[in-house]
């Protein structure tokens, strides 16, 4: 059968040979990408990449490292700017001495992932494309015993609609340290394939907010892999509203007692957007907590997916793992899917999961109307209420205003005609 589109594995092979011929470690990733996952692949069944496969694009390469971006960075944060996935030192703030920044190689990437044996991670297109095609691999290290006063901001910007971009970042929070990060994806690219690794050492803490707000034509395939050591505490909140297709996939490895991972998400979708929040949490040690909570609001022909996996190993007794997905459907053409997957091998655990899909409640709407509040305003207030609980529960005070404002802008947008 003749293929309608270029073979992307050939595209990246050519790219790696032209740009990184001498780097054998990239080939490790290169040879593991043969094609986009097919719909028969269970983890991609609900989020199909056919449209992406038919797009023509090549990985972005920057010749000059001196382009300054026009976006204004916020004084309340230490901002690091990435343009088309490439770190822009000139646009970024100087970091305090508690944070060390360095550049890593493909070899380092292999080293940092050597504990992983899950097939869904090792065959993830982002891992293998970005692992072979990245230009910069940034490591941010929060040195031990440091409380970072001002949050970090990671601004992912850029404009290259005919390219794929490959931001690659490793964040390591050393023992007893504490940092807060806000990341914004506002790129315009054919494919944004960010790969991130989080390493939380003993008794460290990370508050991480991620806005997935790429251009309406962009496909975003984020892959985040995190490792938590004992007493580490990680709170990640995703707001997904941009892109034609955005999948935010996270794999969290709880590798020490008393660690806790809260991974919550709000997605707001309209038009023909497809938003996917896929999360796997691997409980390998006793006395750890995790939560995966999702709220989606879908209008028009949009589709939403939540895939939540909890795996509790035999020795991970006293695990407390919560999972909940709620979707609000505003149009009869919108669709939400939720797929929980629980693999529990320990006996003394508390695991809960649930999923609801519904429309705005007619009796609630009527209560507003009966008090003189019009339908439009009533809908707004009910959606706001639907989202406020998870936002209040998930978002650190320091980011609250920014998250509430961003969410409000996004959900007003999805209510537009």
């Amino acid at each position: 059968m003749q293929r309608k589109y270029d073979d992307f594995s050939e595209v990246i092979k050519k790219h790696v040979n032209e740009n990184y011929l001498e780097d054998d470690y990239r080939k490790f990733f290169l040879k593991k990408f043969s094609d986009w996952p097919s719909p028969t692949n269970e983890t991609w069944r609900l989020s199909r990449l056919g449209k992406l496969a038919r797009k023509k694009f090549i990985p972005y390469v920057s010749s000059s490292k001196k382009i300054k971006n026009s976006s204004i960075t916020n004084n309340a944060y230490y901002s690091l700017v990435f343009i088309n996935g490439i770190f822009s030192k000139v646009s970024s703030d100087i970091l305090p001495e508690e944070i060390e920044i360095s550049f890593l190689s493909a070899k380092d990437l292999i080293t940092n992932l050597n504990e992983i044996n899950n097939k869904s991670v090792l065959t993830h297109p982002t891992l293998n494309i970005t692992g072979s095609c990245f230009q910069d691999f940034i490591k941010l290290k929060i040195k031990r015993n440091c409380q970072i006063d001002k949050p970090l901001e990671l601004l992912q910007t850029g404009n290259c609609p005919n390219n794929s971009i490959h931001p690659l970042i490793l964040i390591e929070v050393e023992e007893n340290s504490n940092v807060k990060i806000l990341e914004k994806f506002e790129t315009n690219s054919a494919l944004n394939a960010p790969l991130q690794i989080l390493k939380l050492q003993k008794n460290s803490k990370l508050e991480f907010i991620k806005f997935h707000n790429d251009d309406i034509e962009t496909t975003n395939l984020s892959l985040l892999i995190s490792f938590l050591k004992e007493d580490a505490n990680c709170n990640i909140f995703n707001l997904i509203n941009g892109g034609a297709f955005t999948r935010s996939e996270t794999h969290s490895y709880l590798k020490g007692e008393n660690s806790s991972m809260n991974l919550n998400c709000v997605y707001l979708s309209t038009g023909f957007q497809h938003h996917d929040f896929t999360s796997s949490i691997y409980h390998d040690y006793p006395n750890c907590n995790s939560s995966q909570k999702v709220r989606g609001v879908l209008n028009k022909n949009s589709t939403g997916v939540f895939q939540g996996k909890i795996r509790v190993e035999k020795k991970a007794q006293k695990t407390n793992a919560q999972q909940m997905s709620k979707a609000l459907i505003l149009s009869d053409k919108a669709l939400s899917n939720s797929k929980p997957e629980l693999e529990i091998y320990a006996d003394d655990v508390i695991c809960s999961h649930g999923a609801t899909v519904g429309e705005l409640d007619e009796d609630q709407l009527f209560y507003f109307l009966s008090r003189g509040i019009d339908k439009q305003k009533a809908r707004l207030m009910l959606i706001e209420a639907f989202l406020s609980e998870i936002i209040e529960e998930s978002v650190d005070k320091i980011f609250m205003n920014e998250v509430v404002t961003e969410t409000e802008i996004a959900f007003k947008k999805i209510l537009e005609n």
Partner: protein
Amino acid sequence: MSILNIKDIHLSIEEKPILKGVSLNVNLGEVHAIMGPNGSGKSTLSYILSGKEGYDLSSGEINFDNKDLLELSANERSNQGLFLAFQYPVELPGVSSMNFLREAVNIRRKVLGKKELNHLEFVKEARRLASSMFIKDEMLKRSVNVGFSGGEKKRFEILQMMLLEPKLAILDETDSGLDVDALKIVSNGVNNYKGKDNAVIVITHYQRLLDYIVPDYVHILADGVIKKSGGPELAKIIEKNGYAGIVDAA
């Protein structure tokens, strides 16, 4: 002066006739009680008046304050001064009571030609009226009706009535689930509000509430029609003999 005039309304739900020709006139300054057995269509009538979706008349007319009520959407009816205290107030998780009330009150004030209240002014006014209904400040900070007891929900309905200053208030079984103390609080609220420029329709299953809110007229709704109308003495007869006599007499 007539504030509400219902002329021969008919309504069926799922092809089952519920109201089969109900007429009723209410003038400003009057209190009307509508009594009737369970399932006789009292709440249905309140939903028709307040404009709930799915309660479309098959025939009949309703005038409210010299306007064709059926031409107004539900929120417009409220804006124009019609108020319904629900038999079963719904919970609105995540919607703060204070924000909800302020939104509603400022819309009504605009219609009344009064200036909007800012947050502080509103909080002051809401607290003043709330305390007269024995509603604690703490309750106003919660989500609408969430975690309220049955009695608290009913008092919160009356607080909304006070804040919205309607021309016509319809109270649907506001007495159900109230103990005597709560009943007195609610009745006091209604008695203080009623006057020559407004009217009240009290829907109740029991005569008990009418000892506190004394009606000018009592109507018995049964079998889809108003079987009997009279003064407060009619309610006393019901208390003594039940509905049996009246309903059977048809």
